């Protein structure tokens, strides 16, 4: 299998990750395209076993750049809403995609890499370029925030230590 083919077998998963990462159909394929092109430019440098993580890392980076650019533009021009109208979507996908919107981009990355794309903690940490403990903390925050957004507020359950300090591992009684 050539690198080109190897990358192509990763494309369906990359598109899934990009779509979930960017929100409702907003330029996800452009990011995938940019990622593929960037990876191809550097294809000689990848070892096969590294390839998957490299393309996911490249896509993660590209999404962050794009989000920053969008944030700057929103500040500068006060665009209404998030730009393009959401893609037509089933209600279930709509609901979960909307819920993802409440997450910070780092939290979304962590959750999607682990829960959607099936990466292990260490792999996901390397993809986002953070220590494993940080990755796990982001994952925990993401799950709690998503649960809260969907009406399951973990803070509403009886707990002797209700104060959640974001980023720290809390002891569960």
């Amino acid at each position: 299998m050539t690198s080109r083919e190897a990358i192509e077998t990763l494309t369906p998963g990359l598109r899934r990750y990009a779509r979930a990462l960017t929100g409702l159909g907003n330029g996800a394929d452009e990011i995938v395209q940019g990622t593929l092109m960037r990876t191809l430019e550097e294809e000689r440098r990848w070892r096969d076993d590294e390839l998957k993580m490299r393309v996911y890392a490249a896509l993660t980076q590209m999404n962050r750049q794009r989000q920053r650019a969008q944030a700057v533009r929103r500040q500068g021009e006060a665009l209404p809403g998030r730009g393009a109208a959401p893609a037509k979507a089933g209600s279930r996908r709509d609901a979960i995609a909307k819920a993802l919107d409440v997450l910070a981009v780092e939290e979304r990355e962590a959750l999607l890499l682990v829960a959607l794309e099936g990466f292990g903690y260490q792999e996901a940490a390397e993809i986002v370029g953070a220590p494993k403990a940080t990755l796990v903390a982001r994952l925990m925050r993401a799950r709690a925030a998503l649960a809260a957004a969907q009406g399951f507020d973990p803070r509403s359950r009886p707990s002797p230590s209700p104060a959640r300090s974001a980023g720290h591992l809390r002891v569960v009684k």
Partner: protein
Amino acid sequence: MGKGQDPVTEADLHAFLDEEIGTERRAKVVEHLEQKPLDAALVDTWRAQSEALRGAFARIAREPIPLALSLSQPLTARASAVPINTRRLDLVRAARQRRVAIFSAAAFLAGSIAAATGVIVVQHLPSLFRPEPGLSSTVGRRVATRAAAMYRTFANDRTRPVEVAAAQKAELGRWLSERTGLSLIPDFSSDGLKLIGGRVTPGEFGAAGFLLYEMATGERIGVLLERAPEDGSADPLRVTAGDRTTLYGRERGTYWAIVGSLGDERWKQVAQHLVAQIRAASPLTP
């Protein structure tokens, strides 16, 4: 180690769910969850989240890969030789979102240049300028299915593969224009494809035009064109069934599909030429 010294943490619950936990620790968490139904419910909530996520986005991974993202079969040879510059991509995107006018002018220009010079359009242009996602257009898929059915029905008909033959090209043009609103009869002579003729056929929104072309080898190619109610473009997608391939897309509000058996290189060329001709025939309205 006593329980008090080594309590189960929230991180343990996540590690348990994500199978990132050692056997010993896992047994401890299982025990913990048996005693703490609220924590067990929490883990269930997270598990349901993951399943909902996977369910919600599974469809995307099953979609046909848009041709623009297809690396082993890029629509133009140039696409792989000259990888897209992502900075340029950013610039284009920014420009597009600021000023629709720039998009229109640039896309029109690109189309005009391509049409005027016959230069192969760089495949990335349509996707860069794409005004809508449109990747999984069900209408597009139906158009492709219909095109394939017409090809099966008409392409090898010995008696009357077309209603109006190429000899009456002007008449064919008038007929199609009147019925479908499209006056374009694409010319692929530079690709070695000779027009046989065409016919008006049922379409998604009204009447569609189905044209047949023939190679020197006798192999036939079908082209379906239908005007959609609204403008809009979508990148080409490819469906392959046996040795027959259907390539379909939407360009400036015209659904198009090409059916037949062609080598990859030929497909690229023919698709490029078709898209360029549709663009030239339907300039953007201001």
